[in-house]
């Protein structure tokens, strides 16, 4: 990024009408654009055919939408998506929400927020209650996100918990999972802080973006206003180590404040906020209709 600055020396004040100075050896439009486009994955400066897209752009959008639609339909496969090592290290297992299949999951978020009776029995039997940190992995709307991010983040969270002397609950996975499942986990296991790692709805650019929702002592009836969020965990978004650092810092804040959600604000410096590889904190107040 410092390279970007050095390539644009001495921009005069009031540069709006500086075009007459173009005789000097100044960076070309193309040079400026090639530096700046590195700062965003957005589809900027793509050109046009009249007021429409160029054909190549049109078809690229079409291909990406097709990939996203296909990603939504994929089902969670514990060994393939989390990896044998991680499954064995943590003794991971999968339980179901109250949804019977993917179609019901898409149409009935209320069922995706509840653990099935069988799931509740299994969790009670397998997971010691009262952990300082309980991690749950949910497929959400992208198994691709779980496959690409969850195993690493889970491992790093366990290490971070150990380094702080926190008890780390027996983690597990929930198939056809919505964010509201946090409340059932809280009611069942009474952990201090629950972190739900869940696949975000695929975008066109990224089908593998993971979110981490935090809740302090979640209970039935809690809403997103009582949750914190670190989102956009993927290759060009929030890196794994940065995500884990932020999740752990938020967990510490929640434990200190004995609450979570809107009352707990993550603090990051403006310098950090201006850098693409170290984005800021989560958005606790939900926009309408995330994986909710």
């Amino acid at each position, binding site marked *: 990024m410092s390279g970007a600055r050095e390539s644009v020396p001495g921009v005069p004040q009031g540069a709006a009408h500086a075009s007459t100075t173009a005789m000097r050896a100044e960076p070309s439009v193309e040079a400026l*654009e090639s530096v700046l486009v590195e700062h965003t994955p957005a589809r900027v400066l793509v050109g046009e055919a009249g*007021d429409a897209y160029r054909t190549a752009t049109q078809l690229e959008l079409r291909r990406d939408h097709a990939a996203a639609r296909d990603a939504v339909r994929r089902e969670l496969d514990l060994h393939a998506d989390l990896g044998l090592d991680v499954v064995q290290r943590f003794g991971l297992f999968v339980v179901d929400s109250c949804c019977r299949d993917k179609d019901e999951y898409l149409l009935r978020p209320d069922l995706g927020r509840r653990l099935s009776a069988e799931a509740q029995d299994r969790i009670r039997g397998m997971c010691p209650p009262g952990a300082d940190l309980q991690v749950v992995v949910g497929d959400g709307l992208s198994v691709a996100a779980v496959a690409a991010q969850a195993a690493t983040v889970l491992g790093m969270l366990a290490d971070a918990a150990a380094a702080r002397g926190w008890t780390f609950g027996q983690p597990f996975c929930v198939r056809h999972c919505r964010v509201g499942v946090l409340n059932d986990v809280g009611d069942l296991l009474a952990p201090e802080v629950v972190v739900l790692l869940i696949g975000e709805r695929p975008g066109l650019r990224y089908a593998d973006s993971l979110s981490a929702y935090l809740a302090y002592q979640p209970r039935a009836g809690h809403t997103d206003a009582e949750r914190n969020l670190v989102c956009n965990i993927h290759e060009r978004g929030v890196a794994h180590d940065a995500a884990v650092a932020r999740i752990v810092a938020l967990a510490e804040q929640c434990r200190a404040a004995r609450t979570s959600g809107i009352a707990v604000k993550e603090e990051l410096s403006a310098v950090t906020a201006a850098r693409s590889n170290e984005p800021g904190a989560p958005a606790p107040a939900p926009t309408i*209709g995330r994986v909710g």
Partner: protein
Amino acid sequence: MAWATVVRGERFAFDDLRTLLAKANEEKSGDRLAGIAARSESERAAAKTVLADLPLAVLVDEPLLDPAHDDVSRLLARTHDAAAFAPLRSLTVGELRERLLSHDGAVDAVPPRAIVPEVAAAVAKLMSNLDLMTAARRMRRVTRCRNTMGEPGVLGIRVQPNHPADDVRGILLSTVDGLLFGCGDAVIGVNPASESVATVGAILHALGALVERWQIPTQTCCLAHVSTQLAALERGAPIDLLFQSIAGTEAANASFGVTLDLLHEGRERVLAHHRERGDAWVGDDVMYFETGQGSALSAEAHHGIDQLTCEARAYGVARAFSPFLVNSVVGFIGPEYLFDERQIVRAGLEDHFMGKLLGLPMGVDVCYTNHVAADQNSCDNLLVLLASAGCNYFMGVPCADDVMLGYQSTSFHDAAAIRALFGLTPAPEFARWLEERGIFRDGRRSASNAALRRDLLRAIERVALPGAA
């Protein structure tokens, strides 16, 4: 009160107003999810038949939600103009529909302040898609902040330059790309990935600096939680428009972490801040609200009220704060609330009509997610329908792909095409600026101007890191 009617020999009874309104709704997966939808098409038609004969007075006098338990209901009662409503009291819902569609200018005799959200929702349920467009087109709602939105012949566009990691240069590059398409008159509005006060402040400072440096007659906004924006304001960030997502019940607003008092306090603080800044404001409309059918149900805060009526109640909240912009994010919520393109199109037309009827400067984020049965052609279709209905503004997202929120909206290209197709122009102050800067020539986008492009691109470095150059 209970109602019943017989349709083709079958008797249909409706125990209360909530039930009647819910069953009269056009089909929405969200109403089915809530367990309140009509069980058959005949029951839906029967409910519409009963609703058509209902005097408006019933909808005003029988609150759907007890004001003692819901502050939105109290606000709606307080802001309803009973004197303006008096001449309409004895009209039925069916008669109101005809009045809104009649040729004799009777729509002027229906002032927004006479209409309560339940009436707006009820009449929408009796309208066809074309009715919703025809009626809405007659209702222009003009608002002013740093420019003037909503006049006849004007179509505004919000530049939505979101970035998954809030990289300020990336945000500014998307913004410049949009400006070069003539977009950004409604607002340059960023949904931040982060809710940190520092990040929100950095975005607001950068957008503010771009607007100041280029003397752009538009508004900027960072769509964080209202409390975060106010904290940034406290630390010196410039705020043109104060944003918040809102819904139609107290409990749903609580799930967004907002109260009516907080909105009121926020508006007062931003108005005071505008006076202190002394910029070239042309009006006092400083709020920006987003809504969407299904949000109350999503928060389990709908109290058995259908999603269309909940949405109308959100507009009732919005108008109490004199907003500059209000838009439904109509396809964002997902298939459990709006199942497919057909339902999204219907909801978009309903939302725009109800907002206009209630006096709001209504725009629409025409959009869809990747888990719903819709695609970019769905957006094209609804965009054309809403433009013909006189919608105040749409979104401009690079290639319609929001790389932060992960959904598809409408693009800078779409904005240019729709303006050309309907002969619409940007807000007048902004249109003049586009001409002065050579981005437009005689009302049309001018051919690529390399010097201008370079100047705008170089400005990014200046405003991304203030004091660095």
